[in-house]
């Protein structure tokens, strides 16, 4: 028999370039914030209040994207805000993913009583309206980074659990799982070595989506003033402040909004891009 295997070069697609590029930029900005931010993000100075971005008349060098009504540099605040946004995205996204995936896999693969317990729990959980739930939680836990992360995890693990459970159930009905059983593999081993690689693409897609969602949730909570203390700059906080003065200084609202939008979009596109590039089944 002739052997001819395709050597398909899989280019890093545009999608992956753009989304990955933006996120890397953001991570670098967050890491190097104290050194690259042109101004102190908290320094108030009434002489520099409401400066427009650099291309408009009346702009001042050093305030590239303008300043807000208290004279704080918008660019510097966005850069520092990235720290919080990324921490929330990474920590909350990962925790949600790990908890939801573990429960979903167990429910979907083991079926029987573990499934009944987990599914019932998910159903009850999802009966709570999520935003109310979050506000309630923060009210109880108090504001602060940890409470935001806990709130996100507590609300969103069910999304993972449900999707992964369904996926694990589908995969579990495939003969390759029966085949692992015939080979004498333990159930836990089968779950981790046979099922997990096959639900991994779904997990990655959900994870990146979740990171985007975490950024939004954090912004929303800041927006309603339930996030971190108002001292450290957050994108949501900036948007909520910018909203009040949008007629006098639109840039205070628009730049954080664009950043937020690009970040959330990049997270969701990153998932797709990674799948295109690395999933062997799509070759």
């Amino acid at each position: 028999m002739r052997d001819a295997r395709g050597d398909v070069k899989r280019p890093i697609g545009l999608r992956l370039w753009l989304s990955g590029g933006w996120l890397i930029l953001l991570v670098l900005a967050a890491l190097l914030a104290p050194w690259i931010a042109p101004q102190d993000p908290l320094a108030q100075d009434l002489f520099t209040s409401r400066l427009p971005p650099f291309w408009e008349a009346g702009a001042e060098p050093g305030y590239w994207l303008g300043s807000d009504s208290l004279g704080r540099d918008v660019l510097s605040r966005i850069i520092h805000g990235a720290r919080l946004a990324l921490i929330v995205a990474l920590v909350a996204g990962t925790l949600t993913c790990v908890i939801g995936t573990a429960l979903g896999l167990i429910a979907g693969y083991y079926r029987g009583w573990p499934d009944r317990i987990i599914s019932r729990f998910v159903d009850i959980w999802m009966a709570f309206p999520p935003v109310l739930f979050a506000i309630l939680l923060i009210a109880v836990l108090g504001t602060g980074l940890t409470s935001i992360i806990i709130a996100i995890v507590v609300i969103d693990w069910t999304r993972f659990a449900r999707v992964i459970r369904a996926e694990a159930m589908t995969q579990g009905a495939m003969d390759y799982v029966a085949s692992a059983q015939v080979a004498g593999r333990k159930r836990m081993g089968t779950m981790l070595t046979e099922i997990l690689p096959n639900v991994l693409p779904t997990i990655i897609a959900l994870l990146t989506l979740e990171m985007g969602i975490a950024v939004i949730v954090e912004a929303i909570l800041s927006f309603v003033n339930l996030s971190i203390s108002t001292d450290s700059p957050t994108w949501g906080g900036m948007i909520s402040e910018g909203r009040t003065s949008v007629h006098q200084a639109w840039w205070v609202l628009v730049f954080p909004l664009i950043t937020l939008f690009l970040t959330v979009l990049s997270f969701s596109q990153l998932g797709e891009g990674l799948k295109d590039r690395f999933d062997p089944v799509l070759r």
Partner: protein
Amino acid sequence: MNAFLEIRNLCVTLKGGAPILRNVSLSVSAGQVHGLVGESGAGKSMIGKAVLGTLPRALAVTRGEIWLDGVDLQTLRPAERRRRIGASAALIPQDPLTALNPARRIGPQITRRLVDILGWSRADAEARALELLAEVQIPDPARVMRSYPHELSGGMRQRILIAAAFAAEPKLIIADEPTTALDVTVQKQILRLIADMQTRHGTALLFVTHDLGVVSKVCDTLSVLYAGKVVEEAQMRRFFMHPIHPYSAALLAATPSYKDPEGSLTPVPQSVIDQVEREVTDHDRRAGL
């Protein structure tokens, strides 16, 4: 031109260079059955996929024409091509389980094409699906419509795909080993059903199979494929009486018959393999590959 499907000098290669199909030409007229036999891995399924435009990502058509109902598909824009193929051709895939969505019940998977593409009402489509399932000899069609794929036997899944392909009464059916999981009595009924549909609708059928017994019952013409190259194209009767190519003769000789239990199981002899391999290499050299 009168053939419903005509493939001319089709070349499909793996991206990265190696050829999978080498100058394949064949044609299927309305109401005719063209058989496709040959070594496993010779590229039979890829011919069907090339026609339907569903080649795996790693493969691409590099040369040749595919005429479907008088139109060269290669010259059409992708959307138009998909529309044309969707409206007139259907596939009975080789791998029933992967072709069915494991998470959905059977019913909607059969009726989807009728409802979505042909605009039938749901009730009509469902009635038609039940009727078809009964025609392909599935016991208790109503239960099967509400089952999930893994709750059915291999042969039942295969028959479901046959029913799904028939549902829309396409003008061309590409059947990729459609009866491998069927016992001979059911197989006989299915083949009769196909013949029946052909006389009623003039369906053209490209029939991939390994079973020369089946070929001798349903095909009008056939091509023998080896390593992506057509080594012999023949009228069915002529093929069984006097196969021209030694590979065809060897295939016929290797076919086991339950009537004669003593004959040994002989794979195609090495000398014949060497000869076709040489032909394929020659072909590649001439084509500058």
